[in-house]
């Protein structure tokens, strides 16, 4: 709709600029920015660990690594499950997509549950010095992202039941999948920093 005089001679082709279709670009930019918050926490953790005169609180020898390792395997595998779910969607196999998507959500939920179980058995709290603070902040912040990922996945699952939901493309699923992989990579780094790199002194 233009307020221009329709009688003016047109010596050019009117150009058009797309209003939409930019969501994935925006989301990727958002993820890059979000990764820096984790980078900040990681570097803070590393610096405090290296320079603290007393790192571990009284009576704490270290962290158990077996249960967290199981959680890690589950979470990382769920990324592969999500990938295959996307493949099914691309081939327009909606029920295949929904099944694997739900499985991803279940594995994510198991991870969160496993984190909760670990937390409730730990002998130190959030205010147990610099170790307690960094541990709960990192794992808690990450856990929040996992929960957010599960909720977003639920939304995508719900939407997949809408007729013609994918007529304009599968951007929502692609974005949430990307978010899930991001959460995964963050966890791998976190696991190495917190559980693998434990002070021997």
């Amino acid at each position, binding site marked *: *709709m233009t307020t221009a005089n329709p009688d003016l001679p047109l010596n050019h082709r009117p150009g058009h600029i797309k209003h939409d279709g930019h969501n994935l670009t925006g989301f990727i*930019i958002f993820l890059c920015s*979000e990764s*820096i918050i984790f980078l900040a926490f990681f570097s803070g953790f590393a610096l405090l660990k290296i320079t603290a005169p007393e790192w571990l609180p009284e009576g704490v020898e270290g962290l158990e690594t077996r249960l967290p390792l199981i959680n890690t395997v589950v979470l990382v595998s769920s990324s592969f499950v999500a990938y295959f779910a996307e493949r099914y969607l691309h081939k327009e196999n909606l029920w295949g997509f929904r099944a694997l998507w739900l499985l991803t959500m279940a594995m994510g939920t198991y991870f969160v549950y496993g984190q909760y179980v670990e937390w409730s058995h730990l002998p130190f709290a959030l205010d147990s010095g610099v170790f307690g603070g960094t541990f709960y902040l990192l794992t808690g912040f990450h856990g929040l992202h996992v929960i957010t990922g599960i909720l977003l996945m639920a939304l995508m699952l719900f939407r997949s039941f809408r007729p013609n939901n994918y007529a304009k493309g599968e951007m929502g699923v692609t974005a949430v999948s990307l978010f899930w992989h991001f959460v995964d990579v963050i966890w791998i780094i976190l696991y190495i920093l917190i559980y693998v790199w434990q002070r021997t002194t």
Partner: protein
Amino acid sequence: MTSTNYDPRVLKALHPVPGAPDNWKRFFTFNTDAKVIGIQYIALALFFLLVGGLLAMVMRGELITPPADLVDPTVYNGLYTMHGTVMLFLFLFPILNGFNNLLIPTMIGAPDMAFPKVNAAAFWLVPVFGVVLMASFFVPGGPASSGWWSYPPVSIQNPLGHFINGQFLWILAVALSGVSSIMGAINFVTTIIRMRAPGMGFFRMPVFVWTAWAAQTLQLVGLPALTGGAIMLLFDLSFGTSFFRPEGGGDPVLYQHFFWFYSHPAVYVMVLPVFGIFSELITVYSRKPLFGYKFVALASFVITFLGLIVWVHHMFYSGTPQWMRNIFIVTTMLIAVPTGVKVFAWLGTLWGGKIRLTTPMLFVLGGLVNFILGGITGIMLGTAPVDIHVGNTYFVVAHFHYVIFNTIGFGIFAGIYHWFPKFTGRMYYEGLGKVHFLLTFIGATLNWLPLHWAGLYGMPRRVASYDPEFAIWNVIASIGAFMVGVAAIPFILNIVSSWARGAKAPPNPWNAIGLEWLLPSPPPAENFEDDVPTVISGPYGYGLGQPLVEDEEYYVRRALEA
């Protein structure tokens, strides 16, 4: 051409023109039009400029005499903390986002931002955290009072022990500000990357778009670090953690790293768009192409990159080891190079030009002179031995006010005057504008030039009282400050009365070259709508005899007849 009645077609058009006077109610709604949001940002920011300015007037009232006799020292500390916080987070960042909203789509020919709803949400967060911050004045114990830096351990002392205290609200407000800024940054960057007019490659974009892009990239990379530090500070303050508390094994200096990793780039976020404004205005008011456009455009991103690796120069005497200081001396000095490229390009643009000393041009030239001084004192501060003597003194205060107010503030005023006709459809009163400039330039110089000497002689910053030998500098500074305060009056009068009853503005009052000047004043809701021009030459083609777009006469006539 001086009719003050709006064309009835405009008032009844399907997409009512954003700036039309009887549509003032739209500025108080959740409106997704970037031009409405732009004006919302600017208007709200100017309100908070007055709030921050009022705080400054009380501060300078206290500092006009050596003893702390006007307000209690704790009150002074709260005032200067809130002055800095309000000026940065409620005036500067919002007003620059206002400029981004108005200028980015119109300068690249886009109909709106990439994510209009996110755009509106990002704006409405600003009054929300504005209220949160203002509320902190009224909680027991008063507002945050440890400087806009909020360094621990002072900031986490919480003397009264309340859970909701001024510092808590400060952290909340700054976190919300970060969310709003990141939402904006994602929007601006996506729009620039994906929504340019046909024919507008990156090296045909106006410099303002380049600098906005460079600045918003810094927001995206830097803000999350501040958010991380702020979350840790909040936890230390409220939940007993020890990230920065030495008693629990934490390190107060760690906070400084998080804080400055963002807050140094933050100053480039603020100055880059103003460099863009300078580039835009010098070309118009000299009627000359920008000297060395490609160098100037690329220098913006060199500043972005270098801006991310200089932050420790704020920590030269914080206990950082010598090797760290040496690295950051080198990187800090390097950033003078792309900045110098821009300054010399502007001087080159003035050469052989046909200069018009309109109000915007006066603010640009005044801002440029001030920036050269502020930049030079910045270089001095980058050399650690000098910084060790003058750091945390009034020399630093003078330096950064020279850049923040005498350069960035001037650039913002210049931009407001220059684009006022375009986005409101009214001409401003030139005489009042010149009065505003004169009062502001003289006042700002009197305010901050003398304070360099106060700092050199050893007067610390953030003090409510000082030794008598510093009195003379402070008296002159306070007089200058009151002048700057008074200068707000012609400015506000001009903006308000011009918008209400100024002469109707033509599409291109300055005879400038740019896509925004091919639109009516004010532009319709979706700018070029379905007829976006194809760009066929670079920007600032003054004297080069080429049209900016294909079939330019069509667009000129279309804008005149709208």
